[in-house]
C-alpha cells in the first residue's frame, strides 16, 4: 500500500501537524521507505495469536476513586502558555 501525497495530507491533519504543501511529497517518500521495510511483517504466521498489549502479566491494580492530590491551581497553571485568574485561556471554540 503506497502512501501518496493525499494520504500524508490527511494523516498530518489527523495528527494536527501543519505540514506545508511543498513538504508533502518528500514526506510521502520517507514514509513509503519506512512502511515498505515494515511490510515484511506479513511473512509472519500470526493465525490464532493473541495480540500482546502489555509486557506486564499482573492485572491492573484498583484503588479508591478519591482525590489524592490537587486543589492547588497555582501548581496546575504554573506552565500555562496563557492564564487569567486561575483559569487556562484557550482560543474560542464556540461561535
Amino acid at each position, binding site marked *: 500500500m503506497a502512501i501518496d501525497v493525499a494520504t500524508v495530507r490527511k494523516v498530518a491533519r489527523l495528527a*494536527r*501537524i501543519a505540514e506545508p504543501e511543498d513538504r508533502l511529497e518528500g514526506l510521502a517518500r520517507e514514509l513509503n521507505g519506512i512502511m515498505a*521495510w515494515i511490510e515484511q*511483517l506479513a511473512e509472519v504466521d*500470526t493465525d490464532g495469536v493473541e495480540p500482546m498489549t502489555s509486557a506486564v502479566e499482573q492485572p491492573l491494580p484498583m484503588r479508591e476513586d478519591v482525590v489524592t492530590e490537587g486543589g492547588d491551581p497555582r501548581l496546575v497553571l504554573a506552565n500555562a502558555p496563557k492564564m487569567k485568574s486561575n483559569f487556562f485561556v484557550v*482560543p474560542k471554540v464556540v461561535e
Partner: protein
Amino acid sequence: MSDLTQLTLKAALDGLASKAFSSEEITAAHIKAIEAARALNAYVLETPEKALGMARASDARRAKGQAGALEGAPLGIKDLFCTEGVRSTACSNIIGNFVPTYESSVTTNLWRDGAVMLGKLNMDEFAMGSSNESSAFGPVTNPWRLKGSNRPLTPGGSSGGSAAAVAADLCLGATATDTGGSIRQPAGFTGTVGIKPTYGRCSRWGIVAFASSLDQAGPIAKTVEDAAILLTSMAGHDPKDSTSLSVEVPDFASFVGKSIKGLRIGIPGEYRLDGMPSEIAALWDQGVAWLREAGCEIVDISLPHTKYALPAYYIIAPAEASSNLARYDGMRFGLREEGGNLTQTYENTRASGFGAEVKRRILIGTYVLSAGYYDAYYLKALKVRRRIADDFTAAFEKVDAILTPTAPSAAFPIGERSDDPVAMYLNDVFTVTTNLAGLPGLSLPAGQSADGLPLGLQLIGRPLDEGTLFSLAGVMEKAAGGRRRPERWW
C-alpha cells in the same frame, strides 16, 4: 587527593563514608569538570548551585549519622525525567521552558537515598533517536575518538548525554531510559555499563512518555557494580504507575562477584547477521570464551522471529507515541503558536514545536492507527510482538541468560546516518527485542574496535532476574580488564 571525578561510584561512596572527602568537595570537582567539558554538549542544564546545596545538606546528614545508600554522590539526570523546579524539556522545543511542579518517582528515590543532582543531560528529542542528533539542543559529541582522528562521533542515543557524561567523568552515574535500546546502545558506544531492567521494575511516573508499553528507566554507570548500586535505588513499586511491579528490590550489588559456574548461556543464531563486522563477531566469540572459562555451559538457541522485532517496534512505538504526544496541544503547558482558529493553533503549535524525527514518528503512528490500517499494521505488530516474547519464553526453558552483541557497529560519525531513517533504526536490531518482551538487558564494555572505539556485549535475562545479569557481567568485566577511559581532548 587525585581527581575525585575519576572515582567509580562505589569508590566515591567508600571515600565519603570514611570521610576522606566531603560531598561538597566531590560535587565541586564534578562542577568544574562539567564546565571544562562543554564542548561535549552532554549537559543541557547545569545546576551547580542546587548541586552544592544538596551536597552540603548531604554532608550535614552524614555528620548526624543518617547516610543513605547514595549519600553525597553527584549524579546526572536525563532530561526526560521531571525534576521539581528544574527545567525539564525532553530536549524538545515544544516543552523547551517546562518547569515541573513535581518530581519523577525514580529521581525521588535517588534523592531519598542521598544523591546530589549535577544537572540535566542531553538526549534525542522525546527519546526518539539512536545518535542524539534529534535533540533540540544539538548533538552530543562522544568523548571517544577514532585513533588519530578529530572527527566527532555520536555517543549513540537516545541517552547520549547520560552515556557521554559517565564516560567523560562528568558525573558518578546517570539516569537514562530505554524504549528500544536507548540505554544499552549508547552504553556500548561509550565504554560504559547500562541496564534496562525488567519492564515494571522502575516507575515511569514523572518520566516524559514516549511508548508507554516499552519505556523503562535504568542507570548508565562506570562499572557493573555501580550500575547495580544505582538500580537498587531507582527501582521499586510505585502506586502512581499502574504497570509498576509490586515486588521486592534485591540488593543488586550483592550479585556482583558471585560465581557463575554451571549457568547455561544461550547464543542465538539469528543474531549473527549477514555482513556483521568481523570485529563484532570476534568480540561475541570472546565473550563466549570468557563465560566458558568461568564454568558456564554454552548452548546454541534459536529466536526465530528476531528479524521481525524492529519492524514490529516501528509500528508499536510510533502508535503509542502518536497517542502520548497528543497532549502537546499548546493549551495547558508548553509552546503555543496562535492560528486563526483552534485547529490551526494546534497545527501551528505542533508544527513548530516538534522536530523532524518526532513528526515522522507521529505521522507513522497516526497512519497505522487510522481507520482501515489498524488491523493490518497495529494489530499485526502486536501479534508479532507475542511471537517474539514466546521465542524468549521457550529459550529460557533451556538457558539462564542470553549473550549477544549490543549494537551492530561501533560509534559512527555525527551526520553519517541522519539522512536514512531505516539505517538509523537498525542500530537497535539487537536491543529492541527485550523491550518488546519486557525482559532485562545489560550492556557492558567488552573490547575495542581496531580504531580504538569501545564495543559492547549484551546480556538478556529472565523477567526480574537482573541479579544473574549482574553476576555474569561482573565476571566478564574482570575478564575484559576493567574500565577504560577515553583520552581527554576536550
